[in-house]
């Protein structure tokens, strides 16, 4: 079990780069949507630091997973909340760890069931590689190489800490 550097400073750095990315790309008035559970914690921080006017949105992608026929219902599903219309809006999708890309695929599908966004950007605290789908983040907090029997876990919300664990 390894503990990583200060998670708060990684997020501060992400917020700065995300702010620059938004102004450079001219995508005015974006809304932030976090993916349950870790992604929502990171999204809360980015939302505050970037002074986003729209309230924070959250997605639980359990109903959109591609492995229901293998592993069934997730026992604790939190309702998705998008307290704004996503039609014609620039969306910043936030997750804690980007790995296979399947979670992001599910989140994109769910977002489109709420409307037609103008664009979607992806910000992730950790990119650990190992993609199984053609999905990349626009803003990455840290790139980390992990062995197959390792996983990285974000605990929170206060304080947010990252640690690398051996999978059972």
């Amino acid at each position, binding site marked *: 079990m390894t503990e990583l550097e200060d998670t708060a400073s990684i997020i501060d750095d992400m917020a700065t780069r995300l702010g620059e990315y938004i102004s450079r790309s001219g995508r005015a008035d974006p809304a932030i949507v976090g993916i349950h559970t*870790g992604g929502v914690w990171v999204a809360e921080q980015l939302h505050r630091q970037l002074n986003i006017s729209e309230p924070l949105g959250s997605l*639980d992608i*359990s*109903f*959109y*997973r591609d*492995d*229901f*026929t*293998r*592993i*069934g*219902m*997730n*026992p*604790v*599903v*939190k*309702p*998705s*909340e998008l307290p704004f219309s996503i039609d014609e809006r620039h969306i910043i999708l936030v997750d*804690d*760890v*980007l*790995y*296979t*890309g*399947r*979670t992001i695929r599910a989140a994109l*599908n*769910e977002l*489109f*069931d*709420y*409307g037609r966004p103008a664009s979607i950007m992806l910000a992730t605290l950790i990119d650990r590689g190992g993609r199984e789908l053609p999905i990349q983040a626009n803003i990455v907090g840290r790139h980390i190489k992990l062995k197959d029997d390792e*996983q990285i876990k974000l605990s929170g919300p206060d304080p947010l800490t990252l640690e690398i664990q051996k*999978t059972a």
Partner: protein
Amino acid sequence: MSRDNLQIDSNGQLRHFLSISGLNRQLLTDILDTAESFAGVTEQTVKKVPLLRGKTIVNLFFEASTRTRTTFELAAKRLSADVLNINITQSSAAKGETLLDTLRNLEAMHVDMFVVRHADSGAAHFIATNIAPHVSVINAGDGSHSHPTQAMLDMFTIRRVKGPDFGRLRVAIVGDIMHSRVARSQIHALNLLNTGEVRIVAPKTLIPAHAETLGTHVFHDLQEGIKDADVIIMLRLQRERMLGALLPSEHEYFELFGLTEDKLAFASPDVTVMHPGPINRGVEMDSEVADGPRSVILEQVTHGIAVRMAVMSMAMSPREIAAEQPHAS
């Protein structure tokens, strides 16, 4: 395998949903929590989630029903399943095909779930016992035995209005307890959720003989029965099930057991009034009450969809490896 644990697999997961008895408090709470998360799907522009895409669900109705069949159908469609409605009274049963032959034929069409409504008690159990192992059966009402999804949508409605602590609630179920599969399922569910007090209120002829053993208090007077009640559930007077002359007249029933604004004054000031529908206005209930601010009758209908989505998706979860936890990616 006994009748009651037929609906639960060796991991304690839902396999069929046949009756409330035989389930435990945790499972009921899981159903309510899952339904809560499905309630949000109706707020999406596309009111659908892809969970049961490619699955085929057959609504097998041997008895007429509009509300129940429609909400089951909508629930299945919002889960992206394909739905087939088969009304057996107008179908091959009329040509003399046995129930088992009907089932074998539907099985041969590779369906994944049956939603069954039947006038005979135990019909859903019979089908679950005789069906291929990969098919799930949901009881949508069997005779005067059980109507578990109705009971769960009522529990969902109570929890939404009154909060999760059933222990502080007095719930009165009023009306034709004798013929009511809804009442039986509600009583089991309320007891499993540790409801403070469950009362049944009806004329003596409409209360089953063993009523006290159900864990309820029995009242034969409406005003006493609903005194200080937090929730009043009115049952439909089932004219089609009244085999003998159990009541002098509907008019007299309304005088004694019909819910009016005047009588409602005996209940708790923030009482909630429920009814599984369809209402016989002026028999069980005055229109003023049914359409009044304490009534949540239409909310019950809305909640029926989310609760049925929860039960269907839980019963359709793959069972052998259900304990395996998904990894976040």
